């Protein structure tokens, strides 16, 4: 039970395939709201247990909130604590907000004078890092999205359209319209196109209070789609990751893509 210590928090978001895959998540205080200006508060953390903050806070550098009208909006009261980050969001518009932490970067390794070197950061800064006499240069692009959805009033679809970058969830059932005893359909797109064969893991929160993870596993079909039958209410964590060669970064051979979402399932 080796607990991975990460000195650089960014690493967690940038590298989907580390030896120890901790769960990265945003957890809104609630997902279905009403009123003239309801607020949500959101926890953001990296941990093994869902949804308990006991490992690392999630850095909020890539925080991106799309309001129901499609515009980006700002959060309030951002704070990074020992184990979690927190921010508040007033829902001034009616409809669905897409709350995401999007990370786009590179990680690289090379040898110089027989010594192995590593780098993580942005593709721009990478240019200055790799020395001209470096050998065995390996560069991997990394695109990660961690998100959740909250709705003031009636669910809307403007904010949840795919951006076309990386892995994204295209909800066939609205992500704020999930109820026990019902089936919900989802489509996964990579660069905006439906992706077959993605392996999806879904885990209900509250893992501390049970003996097994009770993971649900799915694989997307030829339309990039899969269906979930919800049996218990709660906050659920959904994750998938993949890899391809469609990178536009010079020297990069591969691109790693990761996606995680927090979805609330309400009882009937």
């Amino acid at each position, binding site marked *: *039970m080796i607990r991975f210590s990460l000195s650089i928090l960014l690493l967690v978001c940038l590298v989907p395939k580390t030896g120890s895959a901790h769960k990265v998540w945003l957890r809104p205080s609630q997902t279905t709201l009403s009123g003239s200006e309801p607020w949500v508060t959101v926890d953001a953390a990296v941990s093994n247990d869902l949804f308990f903050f006991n490992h690392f806070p999630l850095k909020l550098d890539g925080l991106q909130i799309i309001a129901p009208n499609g515009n980006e909006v700002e959060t309030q009261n951002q704070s990074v604590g020992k184990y979690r980050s927190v921010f508040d969001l007033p829902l001034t518009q009616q409809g669905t907000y897409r709350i995401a932490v999007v990370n786009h970067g590179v990680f690289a390794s090379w040898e110089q004078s027989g010594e192995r070197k590593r780098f993580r950061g942005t593709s721009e800064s990478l240019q200055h890092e790799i020395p001209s006499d470096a050998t065995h240069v390996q560069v991997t692009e990394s695109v990660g999205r961690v998100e959740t959805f909250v709705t003031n009033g009636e669910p809307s679809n403007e904010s949840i359209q795919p951006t076309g970058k990386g892995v994204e969830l295209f909800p066939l059932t609205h992500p704020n319209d999930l109820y026990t005893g019902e089936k919900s359909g989802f489509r996964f797109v990579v660069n905006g196109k439906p992706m077959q064969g993605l392996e999806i893991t879904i885990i209900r929160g509250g893992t501390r209070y049970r003996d097994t993870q009770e993971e649900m596993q799915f694989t997307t079909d030829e339309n990039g789609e899969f269906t979930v039958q919800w049996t218990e209410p709660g906050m659920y964590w959904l994750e998938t990751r993949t890899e391809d060669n469609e990178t536009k970064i010079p020297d990069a051979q591969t691109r790693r893509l990761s996606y995680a979402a927090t979805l609330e399932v309400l009882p009937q």
Partner: protein
Amino acid sequence: MKPLTTAMLCLTLSSVGWAEDIPSTLETTIEIRHLDVSEYHRPYVAVWIQDEDRNAVASLAVWYQITGSRKDAGTKWLPDLRQWWRRTGRSLEMPVDGVSGATRPAGTHKLSFAITDSRLVDLPAGKYSLVVEAAREVGGRELVEIPFTWPLGQSKSLKAKGKNELGEVTLNAK
């Protein structure tokens, strides 16, 4: 026969019985299951004896991450062994000599305790359970119990089986 004599006789007889039956060693085997999972970490495992009221009367072993980037890094997750933590772990100063050990790989592990071990020698006759608890990072948690009566008769062999994290657990007296 006077009551006192009867009592003395009984005492003598039971002492004789004790001398004949008492094994020299208490042995337990613990199987950590092989698991085919994408991310595997060796489980934390704790082994103890508890009485009928579930008070821990002997802490036999706890395997956890002893080395790490920081001192005591691995102790942070000891409460994941939640029953062990409650029954005994939280009152112990880790590491405990002769109890603490590094995590172990999947497979069967044997622990032996001399009957003269300080944890066993004063154990009053009665009903107890051997408890084995395992908790694995990003995995599951399981507790297996073997009820037994102390002192254990010679060649007494007891078994129990876990479903997820733990395989067969045995308790033998030799």
